């Protein structure tokens, strides 16, 4: 999903490639780009499931306002992935309500 050779912008000047984990699986992205952009480039578009109705959500505003794209990053929930820069070795997890999938399943939450 990365744009190659844009007619106006040419090549994108992105940071070095770094490794991070998404739900435990290895993935790569560009250092400093928003976590959400790295995920989108890897075709991940579900960021979380809601607390009440357990419905999937992803990027919506992409500029840190709507808070729909929050995930568990380095163990901390409610991190706005569209404005949080990707760092080497980050752990990024789908957020279930406020929990990781493991925690949610342990609690018997309906997923």
């Amino acid at each position, binding site marked *: 999903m990365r744009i190659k050779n844009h007619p106006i912008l040419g090549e994108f000047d992105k940071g070095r490639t770094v490794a991070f984990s998404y739900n435990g699986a290895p993935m790569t992205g560009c250092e400093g780009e928003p976590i959400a952009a790295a995920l989108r480039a890897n075709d991940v578009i579900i960021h979380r499931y809601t*607390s009440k109705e357990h419905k999937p959500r992803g990027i919506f505003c992409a500029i840190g306002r709507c808070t729909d794209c929050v995930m568990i990053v380095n163990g*901390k*929930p*409610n991190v706005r992935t569209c404005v949080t820069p990707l760092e080497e070795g980050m752990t990024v997890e789908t957020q279930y309500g*406020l*929990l990781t999938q493991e925690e949610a399943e342990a609690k018997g939450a309906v997923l």
Partner: protein
Amino acid sequence: MAETNDVIIIGGGVIGCSIAYYLTKKGIKPLVIEKREIGTGGSSRNGGGVRQSARDPRELPLAMHGVKNLWPGLSEELGSDVEYCQGGNLRMGKTEAHIKFLTAMVESQKKLGLELEMVDGDRVKEILPYASDSIIGASWCPTDGHGNPMLTTLAFYKKALEKGAEFIVGESVEDVIIRKGKVAGVRTDGGTYDAPLVINAAGVGARDIARKVGLDIPMQPRLVEVIVTDQQPVLFDQMLGTAGSDFYGHQSKHGSFVFGGMTGWEDREFYDHRQVTKSNTAPATCRAILDYFPWMERTNVVRAWSGILAVVADGVPVMGPAEELPGFYFASCFCGHGYGISPAVGEQMAELVAEGRSTLPLDAFRFDRFLPKN
């Protein structure tokens, strides 16, 4: 021509709505006049404590009566969840001075019939595993708890409405009408409403209302602030406080934490009568919270709001009839602890209005307590 009502209540906050509801239970359909929106003042700006411990002895019977007889069935009675949770109240201390202060409070309240005790640091950790290790003791009142003030106010409002009370919302009372030495109604910026009985439940506005009939209450507004965090997994159901009063609050049913706190100079802050937050309160509150409750490190603060306490000289509400003016009643000046006793106040005031006397004595709250003493 003005319409005629049995009772007019000035103020659509939790007190006004509660009185309105309990009046409808007695077959009286009051008219409530609210200047802004339902529950705009302190009713939607408080920590939600339903607390008996540390109450003034004059207020304690109302608080105990409410906790015993009214709060447990309130959601069911009103048909709306008010999120009442009887999780107990833990007032924590870190120093010997704190413990001394709390112990004195516990002893005096025990004598008044309230069941509460001093607990040590280990017991605190049992009750609240997330508490800091530096807490050496606490007062513990297991029958205290908390509710959701916004939902409680609206639940009273909705039920009162359903049972025939009427509300005028968006009109400001400009005058209380007196005819032949008695209260005859009120005039607002939108109309005139007759009633032989007017209850002043105007919260912070109560002093202005009383002055319209020549009665002045020694009351001052005081600005306080609360912070709210993002939603978190539900951890505990106690109402929390500290001996040093540096923060108080609870985790809501929704999962967000609602914590009030102070800088220590709130008494001096209310300068321009603007209900705004101050830049220095939230940091003080957050420091205090983390000091007692390090788990909160992972939370985000999503909003801070302020509310105005109607603080009266001797710290307890002004309630009951004004001898000086037949038909004029007070239900005012709750000094920041009105929410917890709001059902009891509504019930007792309704009795007083409907039957001329209340089950629980309200004499200690009479307006004339401020008159010069011999």
